[in-house]
């Protein structure tokens, strides 16, 4: 079974530029998550999708971050404009369903550096 795929793996941009990340979850997984992991910290949930609907985006900085999951499969996360403090690893995860006790399967992450 193929795992969660993410691209690109690394990205370096100047502040105020825009950037987009892509995620392809495990086939058949209904729930998709985007996390931000700052160096030395645990992952912080940005947004959770159930199929193509948003379940939780309470910690997404909506003035600069946006995410979509068209057709309930792939997802993109965009930052526009980027700030220095956005430097982090952006992790995508998926799980078969929503609800507690579900194991989440993580991709390798995209490491973003904002200069």
């Amino acid at each position, binding site marked *: 079974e193929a795992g*969660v795929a993410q691209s690109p793996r690394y990205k370096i941009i100047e502040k105020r530029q825009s950037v987009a990340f892509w995620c392809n979850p495990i086939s058949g997984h209904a*729930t998709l998550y985007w996390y931000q992991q700052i160096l*030395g*910290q*645990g*992952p*912080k*949930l940005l947004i*959770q999708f*159930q199929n193509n609907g948003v*379940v*939780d985006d309470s910690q997404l900085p909506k003035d600069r971050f946006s995410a979509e999951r068209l057709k309930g499969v792939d997802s993109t996360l965009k930052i526009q404009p980027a700030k220095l403090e956005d430097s982090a690893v952006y*992790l995508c*995860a998926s*799980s078969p369903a*929503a*609800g*507690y*006790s*579900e*194991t*989440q*399967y*993580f*991709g*390798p*992450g995209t490491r973003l550096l904002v200069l």
Partner: protein
Amino acid sequence: SQKIEQNSEALNIQEGKTATLTCNYTNYSPAYLQWYRQDPGRGPVFLLLIRENEKEKRKERLKVTFDTTLKQSLFHITASQPADSATYLCALDMYEGGKLIFGQGTELSVKP
């Protein structure tokens, strides 16, 4: 305020010993607690899940305890090996929609 805290210092132990990692939380009421392993440059990998009404869970050399009165989970790796060296994350598994709230992680180093 709500907090979840793991051992702040890195843990260095000798091969063959038991590693014990701590996860404490305040002002949360999780349904479950999960433990993940994260290697450098990789995403977290699920290890174990324990329910709020379970005291202990085991899987091979791993053991997790969960005390909802103390609001604490302990994660043990027995007969530790250098290959166990990684960062270990605890995550509170909340009733609302499966949201996970992660601690900051504890870096474990097992020396041969």
